């Protein structure tokens, strides 16, 4: 309120000075035109002009001071508010990190007993088991491990969404990484009869990327391909090639395929296309969305092509080298 008054006062005073100036100018010029001014009148006029000029300058000077002071006060206030909200955001960020860390800890602690004891029992550490007991223990162990995957995936997702994921870059061999990841998925899967073919462009020797995250992407997609390929005669093809400044990786299966209207849903969090799928094939529904985020973090892209009933191809493309700009730390 007070500020507005000052502002108005300043503007009005400038206007008044301007109007007075104009009036005075008219008066003087009319007198001069008529040439009927007396000497005493001239002195009076000069005095008046001097006073008006003095008053005008005086008002102008203080108006300007007021305006500048007023503006700088507003800026100062805005700065303080910004500093405060920055501090608040930092504090909230810290609290969120602490929450994520303790959530991770609190979820893992009971899972340790669930997975550990069922594993011990499965290993007949507590004596022989009959067939049904063994089956039950297998179920507990499998569910415990599944829950652990979900916990890991959710935490990954939270960290990625919070923009806290940093790439640890290194240059590594593409053929070697592919072999390693094939071995990783085949040792975990029950579908050992699926044939995995690979075709690697000899020009694509190495890539600069985050090796651990590259593996996470490839394993996610390979896992899916294995999961959804045919039970008998299942074939998964991996094609890696160099396309300009990028490395392109295509992983195709000859499994159930995906309807086109569902392509977009694939990369969304917790979207398994059919609730029956998670029962039949397992998985958390987070794998592909995590892969997409990790690919994008590298400045790459991922897409899907599929014919329903015939098979699916996932392709991701990563730049061969990362741009050298360093991301600013908060």
């Amino acid at each position, binding site marked *: 309120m007070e500020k507005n008054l000052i502002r108005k006062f300043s503007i009005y005073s400038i206007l008044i000075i301007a109007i007075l100036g104009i009036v005075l100018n008219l008066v003087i010029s009319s007198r001069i035109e008529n040439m009927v001014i007396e000497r005493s009148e001239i002195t009076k006029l000069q005095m008046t002009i001097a006073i008006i000029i003095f008053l005008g300058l005086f008002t102008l000077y203080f108006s300007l001071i007021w305006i500048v002071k007023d503006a700088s006060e507003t800026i100062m206030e805005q700065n303080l508010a910004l500093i405060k909200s920055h501090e608040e955001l930092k504090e909230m960020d810290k609290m969120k990190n602490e929450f994520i860390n303790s959530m991770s800890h*609190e979820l893992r602690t009971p*899972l340790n*007993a669930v997975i*550990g004891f069922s594993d011990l029992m499965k290993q007949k*550490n507590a004596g022989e088991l009959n067939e049904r007991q063994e089956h039950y223990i297998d179920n507990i162990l499998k569910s415990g491990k599944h829950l*652990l995957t979900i916990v890991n995936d959710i935490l990954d997702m939270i960290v990625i969404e919070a923009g806290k994921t940093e790439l640890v870059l290194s240059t590594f061999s593409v053929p070697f990484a592919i072999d390693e990841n094939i071995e990783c998925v085949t040792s975990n899967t029950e579908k050992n009869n699926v044939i995995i073919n690979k075709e690697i462009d000899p020009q694509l020797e190495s890539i600069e990327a985050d090796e651990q995250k590259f593996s996470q992407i490839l394993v996610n997609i390979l896992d899916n391909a294995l999961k959804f390929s045919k039970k008998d005669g299942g074939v998964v093809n991996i094609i890696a090639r160099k396309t300009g400044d990028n490395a392109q990786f295509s992983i195709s299966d000859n499994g159930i395929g995906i309807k086109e209207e569902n392509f977009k849903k694939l990369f969304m969090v917790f979207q398994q296309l059919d609730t029956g799928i998670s029962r039949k094939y397992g998985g958390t529904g987070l794998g592909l969305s995590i892969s997409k985020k990790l690919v994008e973090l590298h400045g790459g892209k991922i897409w899907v092509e599929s014919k329903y009933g015939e098979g699916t191809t996932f392709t991701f493309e990563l730049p061969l080298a990362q741009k050298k700009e360093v991301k600013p730390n908060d």
Partner: protein
Amino acid sequence: MTKVLVVEDNPLNMELVVEILNSLGFEVFGAINGEDAIKEVEKEHYDLILMDIELPVMDGISALRIIKSKPEYHNVHTVALTALAMKGDKEKFLAAGFEDYISKPIDVPEFMKKMLIFKKS
């Protein structure tokens, strides 16, 4: 026999680790927090300490620091066994002076393999 001190505040997880180590032929003792662990170490000679990090009274890192500061315990092997498994945690505990790091939930066969390395023949 190889003597192991398990520092763990959760009774179920303590039981699990003790069972596994017993089955592998270790002599196992327990402590429920960092302070308790220091008292134990002063009483007995241990070959290996499996230390949880988040503990009441005194956490695992502080306890390790005190134990490692005494020259008579320099040859005791120390492994962090913790549910703190976010990015950077492992590096943090190794930097604090642990020889190795195992995250919970443990994979029993893998855990057994790691423990056997510390077993005196």
